[in-house]
């Protein structure tokens, strides 16, 4: 299988098929990253599209001096952080956070075990999501890249434009905050 780098080099020579392959490989993870950063699926998809468009526009200037995913996530992170700053003050409604979602009333209405399990799972998921969303932007990006996108810390340093030791510190502080915020789940043994 060709590496991302090889595919991107072929894209620079005008191979549209290689770009399709890159889109197939990274479309879903990138959209997930942006969705976790921004809470909103529609905005996340718009920005993910923008990221791929920018990669395509910059294909002739591409230099293989870093991993393709570093470049991809760097563009995505910049767009996400800009979007977060632009939207500060607004209170977006996250997907799945409807009145019934995770509420006690919904659970009382239907007490079938599978539904209860589902609700517990979605309740736990909501708490995790909220805890991560409450992290400062850079800590949030570091945690999401590290935990959910499987990006190593050296690469995270390049994506965020900080030193590797700064990434370790960002991750530690983020996990400490998460440990405190999610303590009821950790102690309650709901895992």
């Amino acid at each position, binding site marked *: 299988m060709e590496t991302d780098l090889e595919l991107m080099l072929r894209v620079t020579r005008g191979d549209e098929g290689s770009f399709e392959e890159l889109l197939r490989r990274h479309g879903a993870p990138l959209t*997930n990253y942006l969705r976790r950063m921004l809470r909103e699926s529609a905005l996340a998809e718009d920005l993910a*599209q923008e990221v791929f*468009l920018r990669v395509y526009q910059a294909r002739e200037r591409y230099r293989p001096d870093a991993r393709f995913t570093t470049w991809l996530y760097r563009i995505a992170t910049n767009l996400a952080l800009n979007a977060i700053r632009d939207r500060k003050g607004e209170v977006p409604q996250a997907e799945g956070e409807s009145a019934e979602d995770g509420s006690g009333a919904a659970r009382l209405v239907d007490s079938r075990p599978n539904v209860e399990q589902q609700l517990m799972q979605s309740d736990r998921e909501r708490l*995790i999501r909220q805890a991560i969303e409450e992290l400062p932007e850079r800590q949030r990006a570091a945690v999401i890249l*590290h935990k959910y996108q499987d990006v190593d*810390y050296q690469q995270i340093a390049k994506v965020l434009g900080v030193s590797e030791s700064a990434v370790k510190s960002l991750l530690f502080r983020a996990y400490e905050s998460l440990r405190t915020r999610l303590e009821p789940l950790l102690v309650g043994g709901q895992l």
Partner: protein
Amino acid sequence: MKCFEREQLFAYGHRLLAAREEEQVRAHVAECAACRAVVKEYGKLDTLLDGWRPAEPSPWFDARVRAAIAAESAKPYRFRSPFSLGWVRWLAPALGVVLVLTAALAVWRSRRSPERLVTPTVASLPASRAPQNGVAPAPGPAPVPVPTPQMARPQPVETPRPVTAAAKAGEDELGLYENLTVLEDYDLLANFDVLSELSRGEKKVGN
């Protein structure tokens, strides 16, 4: 037995340590129940975070990206003239700076030159700078003094001052240089270290 900081234990649990440090922490954690509990706690948190499941992008996401790329490809080819290159953006400010500096230098020189451009003749030289002991000025056409506003003004009368032998010799040499035909451009010559030093010597003597 000294326990590790939480940050190191966290880094150990997430494989963020260098190999040597990781080995040290591993050895300690194997023996220390308290540190082992901290590492376990981070592991538990990590497992909990797995509960935030990924979502699939909408089915039309790929199609939207393809459409955007197709639209981008269909754009008419834009001729990139050399003037659209990035460096051209910096050229204008750079030229501006060069022009301003050149103008400033020209103004500075024009203010400075009336004094300097006057090639001192024997007559115009102060007594202390006139050829002494029968040393005649160098042969060649006598330099024509350029009339300047400074020349029109009455020159202050210099009071005689004590002159040391070394300073006097230096001033003689300066007078000789200034009267050489080939070295008429005194302004240019002023850049030479010898003349600058001589001038300084003269000032020092004056003071």
